[in-house]
């Protein structure tokens, strides 16, 4: 087809997604959507296959395609113009119940020609714990409202009985209503703009361009795969929760222009809500694949075709009903994200041409903490601690990871200002900063994670409560690459205040007066003078830490993100009295580390 028209239609599809995202954020005024960018909007072809994926939480692009297909199957023959469908059942297509998909057909001259789909993490879904993540859930039935597909708008008209039924089952119906309205507005914009495009260029021309776009992505992606070395790469992720460790094992095999992701060997499904369904696992491996391998290729069905997933049924990455999954997005799905990032990174690092695209794992472990309670202004507040979106960049083959730099599956998140949180909740931060020694050591250091502590402050009810789905405090999860070390694990500590001890201006965990107790899973209070301390993981390192430029290590020590002890023991860098690296002593230290390594017999694995 005419390359100029093709280029213009492609750009316009891109803009349609962009405009729909803006609309969604505008209408939903919520922090999780606007700060966390915990959302997704994409366009799909008439058969539900992905046409144009937007920048959002990327593990939704393929799951929403499955949602479109599920709606097509269920409503075949009854799909009307301006209908809007809702789907949030994880065993049908969704990731977990609180990430609601709205799926809307786009018609032109009476014919169904495309779909738009979007999601937001709604404020509440009626699960046993507020906020959507339900650490105490024992099965899908305790995780709130879930639908394998229902018609929410019939030819543009809201089905009020259906809406009222949903709102009747959630804790914060006004906020959920607004969440749904934001998605409806988003569907409307996508449909209007697509209609304009179809009118201007005609349906056959647009359809030809869409087909060409999918074909182009497939051609380009297969060519890229052929340019990469054939081989097999592995990653193991250890996910601990409540003292139990679940393993996600991934073997990625690249042959010619095909990729197979095989999760054989992963642990059976857990009794905790960290499991994910197979559609979620598929989304989880594509989330890093799109930006790592297809950064210059349109994200659509063409990228999906060369990829096969094998996920054993009944495992933690393909659980069977009624296993609970409400923590999946920050549980097994995130482990899949990490494992895929690692296997792809290993493959890229094995290619001289693509080595500069390789990255160690970024932010490997969300800590989902929803705080709720009466606020200092006479109202009630509920919301996520947005620091969970702040993340940490993995080290790259040419540079350190970005400190508190976000994550790959959701490339454009951000966290709220301290003043924003303190204005909305009766809490006060004691500190919030980069966490020392959290970035995975390496020739290039992983970006640091962060650490923070909060206390209640002038709370009318004496405090607030929080739901925590914190896992990963035992094993590091952000793997290093090419000899780099992993980033430090998460840490969650409830500091019980001693009688009359005030936290004052404590600026480290160690200086908060009281008795620390690790917490991770469930609902807890934050009252009196007690403090909640959270440290989140750093990114993985790249390359051997004893190959790191000693001056860079010394600079890290000066700025407080690497301790002198880590500098000596891990990086083999001795510091001079002026804070710079002592080169002679460093050579000696590194020599000793090499000798010690060589003395170790061949590793058991």
């Amino acid at each position: 087809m005419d390359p100029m028209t093709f280029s213009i239609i492609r750009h316009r599809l891109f803009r349609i997604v962009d405009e729909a995202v803006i609309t969604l954020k505008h209408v939903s005024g919520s922090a999780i959507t606007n700060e966390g960018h915990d959302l997704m909007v994409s366009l799909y072809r008439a058969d539900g296959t992905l046409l144009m994926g937007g920048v959002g939480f990327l593990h939704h692009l393929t799951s929403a395609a499955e949602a479109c297909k599920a709606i097509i199957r269920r409503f075949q023959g009854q799909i009307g113009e301006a209908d809007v469908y809702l789907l949030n059942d994880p065993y049908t297509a969704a990731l977990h119940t609180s990430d609601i998909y709205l799926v809307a057909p786009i018609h032109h001259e009476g014919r169904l020609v495309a779909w738009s789909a979007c999601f937001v993490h709604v404020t509440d879904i009626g699960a046993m714990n507020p906020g959507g993540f339900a650490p105490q859930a024992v099965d899908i039935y305790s995780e709130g409202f879930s639908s394998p597909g229902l018609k929410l708008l019939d030819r543009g008209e809201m089905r009020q009985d259906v809406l009222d039924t949903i709102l009747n089952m959630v804790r914060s119906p006004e906020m959920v209503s607004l969440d749904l309205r934001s998605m409806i507005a988003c569907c409307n914009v996508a449909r209007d703009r697509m209609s304009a495009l179809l009118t201007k260029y005609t349906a056959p021309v647009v359809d030809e361009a869409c087909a060409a776009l999918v074909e182009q992505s497939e051609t380009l992606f297969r060519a890229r795969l052929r340019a990469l070395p054939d081989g097999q790469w592995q990653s193991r992720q250890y996910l601990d929760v409540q003292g139990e460790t679940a393993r996600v094992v991934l073997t990625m095999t690249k042959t010619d222009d095909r990729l197979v992701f095989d999760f054989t060997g992963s642990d059976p499904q857990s009794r905790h809500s960290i499991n994910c369904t197979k559609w979620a696992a598929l989304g989880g491996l594509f989330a890093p694949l799109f930006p790592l391998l297809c950064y210059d290729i349109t994200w659509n069905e063409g990228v999906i075709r060369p990829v096969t997933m094998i996920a054993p049924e009944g495992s933690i990455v393909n659980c069977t009903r009624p296993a609970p999954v409400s923590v999946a997005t920050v549980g097994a799905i995130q482990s899949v994200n990490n494992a895929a990032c690692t296997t792809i990174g290993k493959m890229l690092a094995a290619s001289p041409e693509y080595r500069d695209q390789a990255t160690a794992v970024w932010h490997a472990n969300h800590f989902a903490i929803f705080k709720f309670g009466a606020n200092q202004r006479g109202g009630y507040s509920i919301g996520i601690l947005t620091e969970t979106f702040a993340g940490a960049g993995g080290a790259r083959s040419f540079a350190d990871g970005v400190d508190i730099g976000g994550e790959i599956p959701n490339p454009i998140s951000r966290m709220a200002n301290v003043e924003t949180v303190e204005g909305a909740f009766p809490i006060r931060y004691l500190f919030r900063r980069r966490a020392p020694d959290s970035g995975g050591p390496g020739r290039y250091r992983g970006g640091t994670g962060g650490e923070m502590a909060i206390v209640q402050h002038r709370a009318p009810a004496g405090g607030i409560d929080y739901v925590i789905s914190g896992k990963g405090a035992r094993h590091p999860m952000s793997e290093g690459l090419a000899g780099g070390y992993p980033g430090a694990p998460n840490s969650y500590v409830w500091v019980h205040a001693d009688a009359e001890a005030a936290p004052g201006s404590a600026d480290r965990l160690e200086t908060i007066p009281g008795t620390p107790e690790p917490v991770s899973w469930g609902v807890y209070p934050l009252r009196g003078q007690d403090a909640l301390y959270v440290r989140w993981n750093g990114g993985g390192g790249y390359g051997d830490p004893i190959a790191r430029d000693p001056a860079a290590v010394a600079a890290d020590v000066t700025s407080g993100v690497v301790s002198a002890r880590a500098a000596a023991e891990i990086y083999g860098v001795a510091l001079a009295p002026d804070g710079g690296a002592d080169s002679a002593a460093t050579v000696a230290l590194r020599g000793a580390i090499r000798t010690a390594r060589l003395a170790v017999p061949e590793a058991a694995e």
Partner: protein
Amino acid sequence: MQKQDSPPLSYLVATDVGGTCTDTIVFGSDGGIHIGKALSTPPDFAHGVLASIQSAATPMGLTLDDLLARTHLFVHGSTVVDNAVLTRDGARTGLITTLGFEDTLHVTRGAYGRWAGLTEGQMKHPVKTDRAAPLVAREAVVGVAERVDCFGDVVTPLDEAAVTAAVRHLVQDKGVEAIAVSFLWSFLNPAHEARVREIIEQVAPGTYVTLSSDIAPVPGEYERGSTAVINAYAGRITRDYLTDLASQLSARGYAGATMVMQGYGGLLPAAEAADRAVGMIECGPAAGVIGAKFLGDLMGDADVIAADMGGTTFKVGVIQGGQLEYAREPMVDRFHYIAPKIEVVSIGAGGGSIVAVDPVTRLPSVGPRSAGARPGPVCYGQGGHEATLTDVMLLIGYMDPDQFLGGAITLDRAGAAAAVASQVAEPLGLDPTAAAIGIYRIACAQITDLIREITVERGLDPRDFVLHAFGGTCGMLAAAFGEELSVRRVIIPYTASVNCAFGLISADVAHEYTTTRTLGTATPAAEVNAIFAGMEARARAQLLAEGIEPHRQRMEWSVDLRYCRQVHEVTTQVHAAAPLDTAGLARLVDDFEALYERKFGKGSAYREAGIEMTAFRLTARGLMPRPKLPVEEEGPADPSAALMGRRPILDLTSGGMAVGQIYNFTLLRPGNEVPGPAVIHTPITTIALHTGHRARMDRWRNIVVTTDAPHIDA
């Protein structure tokens, strides 16, 4: 327009320093308009300012000193602050902040500072993204014990000994020349920051200090601190620059006042502007929007899209109902700051933009890479070898190879054709003309998409707007993309080449004051009035001190409101008479609700949660006399006296090259009408018209393009 000067004649001189050119416009008290242009001369911008004024004076038959001696007011805008930040040429700066939050500036609210300011293509490639190199080294950030809470109450008193030690450390050990101070909640209770200033003045007198509570007294510690840092970083350069310029002007005999343009489109006396460096960021583009607003007001158009396209960027601002739009999250380089700033959105698309075919996707594209002024487009023959949009314009007949810059250089058509053929046409399997036409369509589509984005995003419909086209490249595209957007009219103003300078002389003095406080809408009106009364008292004293008498003072109230538990705040003008009564306050809330739905879409209002006021803003204006533009009588429509010839040009309406008529702008007379396909060559640009377009020169010598075709396929 030149006249015999007589002694009482006096002048208003306005000079805008842009990235490439320094433009001057001189208004005589006789109504005469004179234009000057010189290259900008970073970092010594004053040199270019004098050269630019000189270049306006010479054709007037005046020396620089003569002109300045007769100048009663000098209005100025400059890119000095943007330049200092972009080239990292500012002061060595330190930051004193609340203990425990020393990383706030560098951590940039997580990934935000890593992706903000990037293109969507770059955002999709996170492995290749990093934060911008910071203006303050992390080692030059010191935390001191102190804490204020969300009510403005002190939780932990300021540790003054720690402050003294911090200042010594920063100045003596780190060698800083400027210190920014930013504490949590300081906008509610600035006492701790104020005390730090006193200590700095004792311990290290002469250090440049910026307090966050002074420069940006609003919530959001990351953005507020970043604002303080930028201001401290560029502060001394700005002050020295304005002081130096004033002394150079006065050495040349200028005895009047100097007013400096701010990013929000108002003027400040130079002495005040000198301490608010952040205010000057992007003041040139802001002036451009102000100029468009002035012309819009003059021509009776309240809704204007102001588009400026030069060599490297396409910039666009929007005026709706006579109101300006302000940026929500302004940035300079890739640093966030908080200051009222007119929203001007840009993309890397200009005459120098390189046109290429992506080797991976094989998609043709325009920009964002630019050949700049050097080596420039291939056709300039200055060594450029990558095809640019300007080369394409030459190939589709919009530029005359022999008449460029008045014939100063002969454009190399063969070179341009060869470059487009090998770099664009061959990879796509097209013939060079088809490739050039395609590139033109893509440039139109990109601009159309951008304008649609920034209008629709705010709930605006481009069909309600008039489009003003400024800059050297815009005229070649404006009629085409204006039609695709279905704007009412496209206007290429007579002053298009010096629009930013023109904007300077159409601005008022304006001071912006903000008080941050969260109040429910049931708050008694008297409480709101008291907040404004305090700000007004300060504002009136300030304006009076600047010589602006009460009858030229205007006080405009606005309030930021939001739905509780929502993040979007909307600045809503107070339309009711001040002081407010209960009905006036109710009207404010109604206006907010209407505005919110317009901006964020139907159904977005979340009334169930209630509404609260979060900030109270006062704009205190000192009205400046407006220049009177000369008006000419409109004559007959026949443009044949300006017809220079005919040649093949791109006519989008017919889809290919067609014979078009070529007109000389300087020979056109008001009332003349030119039908498309045609081009009009002006001294700085070309106006391209397609079949169905009609251009008329109006009584101010603006070119007004209307269309009778319903549709052009771009």
